[in-house]
């Protein structure tokens, strides 16, 4: 009988590097690593040769130079005397704004459309199908451009709102008029909406370079407080239900909780709405929502919503009919069935692809360039890049920021996925 032999390491042959499972993967990895390093080294070497040849270097100090250009939508204070870094922040905030609002709106529309597509109403289901098919089979760029064209071509110019003495005398109507009790003006520059002003304003605090209005903080706080109370009432109702079996009617309490604190704070601050009024070339006062923003937002929203609708539909369809029937057979009403049985299951199916749609929307927001919306691509990757000639640095920085954004979103998704994974054998 053969004797017990330990690992056959003793007689190592070169061929084992390839044919021995123990060494094979190491060999391959070393080769891959070598190729990768060689490739990277080659690229870097070229880069530095080229840079040297052109008398350039890699440096990010330009971020601290004066930017010198103006940006039309600034959510954080910015003038042309600020640095390129700040301009970048302005762009980033604009990107985040459109991405966030886009995700919210697309989710709402997508869910509604997705549910309606399953409606037993033939007409509505067909209409929704048409919407979905048309929007997702045409490039998003087209939707952005079309929305923009609608906003700039179809809407009136500010001076069409002008009422001159002569017109009054002749009893003419102006070519365009404002909506909602003269508070909203949709023009081909943008939409002017009323602005909230506080007569008993509490001023600002400066957080580093960011001035923050205390009024806004207070309003935010009151909203958060309202939501907390809202949830507390809900939890309380659940407790009562658990104890007595009957769920108390709380909707009016919850509504009050949600809006009460906000109203109180607003009144205390002496808020009023400042309407935009026509003056000079343009409306003054109020808040201007740029058409480029509207176009980008609506275009992205409608496009992404079509995909989300499909995701929602698939998610609901993925829950077998048996689940509904079982719930009905237990005596649950359709509404309760939806809330307690179908939605919690559908959400698990829906959320992961939903998040990747959010990612897509965020990335697609870089098409802002097509409608001159000043997002990150417009400031850092556009004007700053151009005025400073730091194309490598700017592109690197931009990719990095987008990458970090996506990684944040997708790691959030992973956490969620792990939390809700169905338990199985």
């Amino acid at each position, binding site marked *: 009988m053969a004797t017990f032999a330990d690992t056959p390491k003793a007689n190592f042959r070169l061929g084992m590097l390839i044919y021995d499972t123990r060494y094979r993967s190491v060999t391959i990895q070393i080769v891959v690593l070598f190729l990768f390093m060689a490739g990277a080294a080659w690229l870097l070497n070229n880069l530095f040769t080229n840079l040297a040849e052109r008398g350039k270097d890699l440096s990010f100090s330009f971020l601290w130079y004066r930017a010198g250009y103006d940006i039309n939508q600034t959510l954080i204070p910015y003038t042309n005397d600020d640095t390129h870094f700040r301009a970048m922040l302005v762009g980033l905030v604009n990107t985040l704004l459109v991405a966030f609002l886009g995700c919210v709106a697309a989710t709402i529309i997508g869910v509604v459309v997705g549910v309606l597509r399953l409606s037993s109403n033939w007409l509505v289901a067909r209409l929704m199908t048409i919407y979905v098919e048309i929007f997702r089979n045409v490039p998003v760029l087209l939707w952005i451009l079309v929305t923009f064209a609608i906003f700039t071509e179809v809407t009136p110019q500010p001076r069409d709102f002008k009422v001159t003495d002569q017109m009054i005398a002749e009893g003419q109507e102006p070519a365009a008029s404002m909506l909602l009790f003269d508070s909203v003006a949709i023009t081909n520059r943008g939409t002017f909406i009323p602005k909230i002003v506080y007569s008993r304003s509490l001023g600002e605090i400066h957080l580093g370079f960011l001035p923050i209005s205390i009024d806004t903080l207070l309003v935010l706080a009151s909203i958060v407080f309202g939501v907390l109370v809202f949830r507390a009432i809900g939890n309380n109702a659940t407790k009562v239900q658990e*104890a*007595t*079996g009957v*769920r108390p009617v709380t909707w009016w309490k919850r509504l009050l909780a949600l809006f009460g604190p906000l109203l109180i704070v607003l009144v205390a601050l002496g808020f009023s709405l400042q309407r935009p009024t026509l003056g000079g070339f343009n409306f003054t006062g109020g808040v201007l929502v740029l058409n480029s923003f509207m176009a980008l937002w609506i275009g992205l929203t409608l496009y992404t919503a079509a995909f989300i609708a499909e995701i929602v539909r698939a998610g609901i369809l993925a829950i077998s009919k048996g689940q509904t*029937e*079982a719930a009905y*057979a237990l005596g649950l*009403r359709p509404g309760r069935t939806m809330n307690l049985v179908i939605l919690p299951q559908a959400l698990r199916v829906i959320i992961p692809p939903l998040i990747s749609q959010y990612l897509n929307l965020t990335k697609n927001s870089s098409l802002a360039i097509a409608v001159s919306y000043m997002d990150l691509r417009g400031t850092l990757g556009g004007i700053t890049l151009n005025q400073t000639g730091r194309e490598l640095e700017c592109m690197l920085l931009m990719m990095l920021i987008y990458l970090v954004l996506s990684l944040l979103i997708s790691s959030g998704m992973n956490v969620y996925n792990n939390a809700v994974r169905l338990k*199985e054998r």
Partner: protein
Amino acid sequence: MADPHAVTREINRSQMQVSEEIAIEIVKMNKWYGAFHVLRDIDLTVNRGERIVIAGPSGSGKSTLIRCINRLEEHQSGKIVVDGIELTSDLKNIDKVRSEVGMVFQHFNLFPHLTILENCTLAPIWVRKVPKKEAEATAMHFLEKVKIPEQANKYPGQLSGGQQQRVAIARSLCMKPRIMLFDEPTSALDPEMIKEVLDTMIELAEEGMTMLCVTHEMGFAQAVANRVIFMDQGQIVEQNEPTEFFNNPQSERTKLFLSQILGH
């Protein structure tokens, strides 16, 4: 009969009394799917405590019949009265009937996102408005009855098929229904698991539950049923007490059917 899972328990027939009270009354009920006439002139009266087995070839309308009883399907003519409530399109009546009638499906249809206990307490809490504590106590009681109290905090996905079906039965029982409907409750199960479920059903029968059961487990039918109903082409072709039904079928169709399922 070659069924290796023949019912081995000793069955206590004495307790299975049938009262004179009527639990379900179906009169000249007809149903169509589009132009297809699935149920034709069904007449059936079920007394409280009766245990009825429905058999018949595939597509004969067995499932449709019992699904009409708790209005998972709508019938188009005739009358169905369950527990004194007539099933019309009145939503309140439907709700009442559904909470009186428990149903167990072929594929269990447990809610995979809820634990076993939550599966069992969901309907009592939201439909019967029972306090949670109480609902849980009831649920544990029925889970003990189906012999899986220790699984209460697991999820359906973690249980075997037989266990899942028993949970499904317990879930229905938690609503304290007066009538139970079973639609081929064992046909999706592995042979070993069928026995577990049948035992549970027999226990229920012993307690005098009114039951309608679509099944081809003839051992079960012989041991438990008061009546076997044979359906074909949407009609009730024959009904009789089990021994008679099996030993002395009257109609040609029934004979053919029995020869097939008993022969194989």
